[in-house]
């Protein structure tokens, strides 16, 4: 793993790499046990992600958006949010790793992807893992990209009005950065200096449209200055850097106002199971980005640091496969939602 890159891109940002590393060489606030825990979560997410894709090909899962390649960002930011405490997340459709790491069980994930009874987000009303998981402080309603940004800003506004310390973190892709509501959300957050983090998972593709056709700039974080926000570019393939940047961003958001974190990362799979990326993406490009697979690089880091040995790495992988096998069985055995529930929860009485 690379060492954290020093300094934010945007000088208005205060979230530079000022965090002190402890004697163990780890960033502040985390231990080797945390990293072992998060490595296990990463392997588990990757394993279930691959399984879900396979089940789509078997006709058992209607649709899936893969988080493969995004895991370091999703897990690193969640680790920061968990360590900090009071964060509330507005995710988007590629955030399987965020949602799982936040507490969903593999069995719940499987039920959700199969549209079965027991999906905690919507109980089979919506696409997999869309709706809300309030037990784990996550809202993700829709597939209209960027719709969550203004909602997260409103949530942050309410935090301030209610006098609590909650920081909203809203996840979105480079595609969503083009929406008008992204501008509106960042502008309002800047005006009121609200405790919100705009966490952009920039994988350089809006389905098939490459970044150069979406925008004339290289770093989305540069837009922060136009809104009076702090803007930071982060290597989103590196869980340690993501953790540190998010940790900084949370304290900045709370004390000074909103932050735009641009996580540079890669999408390993097509947009969804319905997409064919061979139509628009050279095979060698995919081969190249896979050289930086966050699961592999984190595994190497763990062995290099002596946190895990190869035998333990293999064991973690085996445990993940066993857990996913069991979750798959539970998903297949779960009943479909009863049609009589179709009219439930239209209104609160």
């Amino acid at each position, binding site marked *: 793993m690379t060492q954290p890159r020093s300094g934010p891109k945007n000088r208005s940002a205060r979230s530079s790499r000022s965090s002190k590393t402890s004697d163990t060489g780890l960033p502040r606030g985390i231990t080797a046990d945390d990293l072992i825990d998060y490595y296990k979560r990463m392997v588990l997410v990757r394993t279930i992600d691959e399984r879900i894709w396979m089940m789509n090909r078997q006709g058992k899962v209607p649709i899936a958006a893969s988080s493969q390649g995004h895991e370091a960002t999703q897990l690193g930011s969640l680790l920061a949010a968990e360590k900090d405490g009071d964060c509330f997340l507005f995710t988007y459709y590629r955030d399987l790793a965020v949602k799982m790491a936040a507490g969903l069980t593999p069995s719940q994930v499987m039920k959700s992807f199969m549209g079965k009874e027991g999906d905690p987000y919507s109980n089979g009303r919506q696409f997999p893992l869309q709706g*809300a998981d*309030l037990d784990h402080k996550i809202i993700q309603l*829709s597939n209209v990209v960027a719709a969550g940004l203004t*909602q*997260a800003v*409103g949530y942050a506004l309410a935090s301030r*009005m209610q006098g609590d310390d909650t920081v909203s973190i809203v996840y979105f892709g480079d595609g969503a950065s083009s929406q008008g509501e992204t501008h509106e959300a960042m502008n309002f957050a800047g005006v009121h200096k609200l405790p919100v983090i705009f966490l952009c998972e920039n994988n350089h593709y809006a389905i098939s449209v490459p970044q150069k056709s979406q925008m004339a700039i290289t770093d989305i974080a540069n837009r922060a200055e136009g809104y009076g926000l702090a803007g930071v570019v982060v290597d989103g393939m590196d869980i340690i850097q993501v953790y540190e940047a998010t940790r900084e961003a949370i304290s900045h958001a709370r004390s000074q106002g909103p932050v735009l974190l641009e996580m540079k990362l890669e999408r390993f799979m097509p947009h969804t199971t319905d997409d064919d990326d061979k139509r628009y993406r050279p095979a060698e490009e995919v081969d190249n980005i896979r050289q930086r697979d966050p699961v592999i690089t984190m595994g190497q880091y763990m062995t290099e640091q002596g946190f895990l040995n190869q035998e333990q790495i293999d064991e973690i992988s085996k445990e993940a496969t066993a857990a996913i096998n069991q979750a798959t069985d539970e998903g297949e055995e779960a009943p479909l939602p009863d049609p009589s529930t179709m009219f*439930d929860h239209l*209104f609160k009485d």
Partner: protein
Amino acid sequence: MAVISVIEAVRSAMQEEMRRDSSVFVLGEDVGKRGGVFLSTQGFLDEFGESRVIDTPLAEASIMGIALGAAFKGMRPIPEVQFSDFVWPSINQLVGEAARARYGSNGQLTVPMVVRIPYGGGIRGGLYHSQNVESFFFHVPGLKVVSPGTPYDAKGLLKSAIRDDNLIIFLEHKKSYRLVRGEVPEEEYTIPIGPSDVKRQGSNITVVSYGLMLHHCLEAAELLSQEDVDVEVVDLRTLRPLDTETIINSVKKTGKILIVHEDNLTGGVGAEIAAIVADQAFEYLDGPISRLCGPDIPTMPFAQSLEEAYLPNTDKVASALRELAQY
């Protein structure tokens, strides 16, 4: 009882609820120092401060998205759309997000939010300050649509709306704001969302309306009474959920129905009422289900002659009632 205008009733309802419940707040364009372009929030900034009276940028999508996000955290936002014509940029947040939040989260999320929308024409507002937007919201599951016609109803319904835990589209006819005055009690009261109100009892013809058009219907009913035609006037007050029972009971009594709205004819609220009456009171009908509505052109032309030609009025309602009476 004091006699006040519709806008005073709206202001008074919000003021009382904001005093009662600190989670209620208003946001919108010019709601702060300006007190709203129609002065619905006049004095609010001084009384409640800028944390609860928020002047927003001119960006309707974010006004609704921010209100929704605050509602998710237990606040009770009252976002104002300055003119109904400006609601379209926020439609995704209202229809795509807020109206589906509870259903789409299987009951986890709650949206205690009242979207206040001054709407309607007759004020020389042209195509972009006159629109009737009710039929668009009327079509949407997961929200309620309220459209009062009198100060008494406006105040009582708005107070109920603010206390409701669901998304309410609260439509205020802007021409009624100062034109329509009426008695409102000094003491606390609310009016439940849902039930319509029979504003005039009658036995020969039922006329169903809401908002400003209600008053033209009442005037026309008075004219017809001098011609020995006894007209019953049903004020819907709430459009969604529709009080089907009152409409059907009235039609069973009179055998004839005229539906009057300013909104365009095609696909309007009247079309749904016509279908319901045909379905549930067919055997009681003694004449065609009739509608007097705005014609199918964009609301609403600016020139006085064109605006008048567009709008239903007392004479037009009276003519339609005479025709139906003679059937």
